[in-house]
């Protein structure tokens, strides 16, 4: 387990963040947006995990601990998001965010 460099992981997590951002910016379906947010969040979690592996001594532990907490947090966020999706769907019959633009200017 000694040959992987931090740069390669950074590439991966950066790419995932970018994909997440891409999704958030371009998708209109609320559920897709949720998924995009999750992808971005996973990029952050991934960072914590591998930085923990690189950090050494007891510091590294905190990285994994954070990752655990973040997994929980991300799941909670999804739940809240889904609750809003459901309420929105009931309200408007649509979960397309492009149609929810009454508040503007």
């Amino acid at each position, binding site marked *: 387990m000694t040959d992987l460099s931090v740069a390669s992981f950074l590439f991966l997590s950066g790419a995932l963040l970018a994909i997440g951002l891409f999704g*958030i*910016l371009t998708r209109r379906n609320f559920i897709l947006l949720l998924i995009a947010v999750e992808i971005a969040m996973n990029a952050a979690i991934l960072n914590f995990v591998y930085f923990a592996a690189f950090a050494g001594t007891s510091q590294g532990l905190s990285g994994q601990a954070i990752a655990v907490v973040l997994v929980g947090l991300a799941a909670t966020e999804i739940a809240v998001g889904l609750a809003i999706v459901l309420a929105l769907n009931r309200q408007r019959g649509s979960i397309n965010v492009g149609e929810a633009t009454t508040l503007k200017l």
Partner: protein
Amino acid sequence: MAVSFGIVGLLGTRLKKLEYGGWIAVGFAAAAMIVGLLVAAAEMLSPGSYTDQSFTWLHLPGSPGTFPNGFSLVMGSLVDPISALMLLVVTVVGFLVMLYSIGYMHHDHGLPRYYAELSLFLAAMTGLVIADNLLEFFLFWELVGVCSYFLIGFYYEKPSAASAAKEAFLVTRIGDVLFLLGIFLYFTVYATAGGGAGWAASGFKFVSGSTPFLAGAMGGNTPLLTVAGLMMLAGAAGKSAQFPLHAWLPDAMEGPTTVSALIHAATMVAAGVYLLVIASLFLGFTPDDRLAIVAVGGFTTFFAATMAVVHPDIKRVIAYSTISQLGYMVLGVGAGFAMVGMYHLFTHAFFKALLFLAAGSVIHAVGTQDLFKMGGLRKPMRVTAIAFAVGALSLSGIPPFAGFFSKDDVLSSVYTAAQSNPAYWPFLILAYATVFLTAYYIFRAWFLAFSGDKSRDPTLPAAHEGPWTMQVPLYVLSALAIVAGVLPFTPSFGSLFSLGGATSVPPTYGTTDLVLSSVSVGLGLGGILLARALWGNGRVYVLAPDSALQPMRTILLERYYIKAGYDWVGLRIVYGGSRVADFFERYVIDGTIHGFERLGTKLSNGLREGQTGLVSDYASYVVAGVIGLLILLLFVAPLIIASLGGP
């Protein structure tokens, strides 16, 4: 002193709007006259002294700077021979005019205002005469100006009167401003020089103890002093209607005739000459100044007389003659003989007042000022005719009338000056030419008005003499117009003309050079004869429509188009420029502001367009911000900080 009389007179007339309001004013004027006479008498008894009383008006303590001795402005009264003389003129003529007004103005409305303004006018003039410093002088000078403004515009409902008043004020204001600059210029020279601690500390005083304040420092001949003198001349030109600031005076005839009499004889226009006299005695003129003064005086003398030659309006003729005569006075001062100017002022005051009051009688009687409508007034208005004739003779310089002595004195003084400086010659010639013109135009007026059998315009009412209040002044002034010339020959009265050493009066009054006197008298008589030939006995000489002289006549009637030129400058250049500036103000300066406002509105609305309501867009702003921050922090900031010299 007399100032307070004037003010009380003002109050008195304001209080009572009744007929006798005027009498109150007359009473005060009489009192002022008596005081004036007493002052003059006192001055005659102890000739050549200065009586100076003053109090501090405004004071700054000294400090190490421009004014080490502090800075003061004072108010005070100075009685010396010239001011006594002038006081005499002002109060006597003032009283007579005031008396005359009782009869002349009785049918006008707004009399309280009239008497109040007239009283204030006199008061201001008196104040000017007895001012003991240049600033106070200026103060009353302005006050005289504003009173003339009110009086000329007395018939304010007439647009022409209102306009003439404005014009008079404005034109004299130009002179005043230059005068003020002159004061500043002298101040620069004398601020710390002269007697006492200098002008700054003692407040522009004329005299210090028994000598002129600036005696020690006077007599310089620097460009600065020359310019200062020219500014004095400009101020005097404004008030005394000298070329090129003469334009207001003929129009000032819009005022009541009494006012014209006062303005022309004793108050306003005299102030200008008085300023020159004062300046020449207390401040000193440089040779260049004197030449300039002579030039202005000489030219104006002739220039004004030419315009008087053709004018049909009786008052305007006299008005032009005033300008012309003022030119003589200025000439005298410029020639270096200040007291000669005063002398002519003294005599002129009486005969000019006489002429105006007589003309006033005529106007009062026939209700018109057009000479060509009058005629044959000799019979119904004998007193007036004689009075006018006395005035006219005096004006023409026919011995033994007063004008002869003083005018002769002016001529001989210029002649004297010309001996040493040939540049004076042209003006001497002009002055002589004017003698002829003067006699011609004034007798043209006399013949047109009084000779013949009846009025040329049959619609005119039957003429009659005025009430006694109008006649008494005529008598008195006639008498004075006859004797005023010889009064200075008496020892006591003569002492008023001999200001402690600086007299500058030729040794005799117009009698030395028999040749010069003969020429001038001859010219005068010639003028009278020409007038009689052309206009005598009710004749009217009409210039043929195709005459070669016709354009010239038009030019003269149009006053050489100078007023038109002024109007053009005022309307086109000044007013036009101001319209352009106003346009600039509204559309460029304010427009810029509005532009900013619109820009703000546009920006605001444009930015708000970004608030689309679409959450993806909001997210994209966030992402754009992140990208921007990344670029800023990773690439731009280190560069900036490095370029600023590190952290």
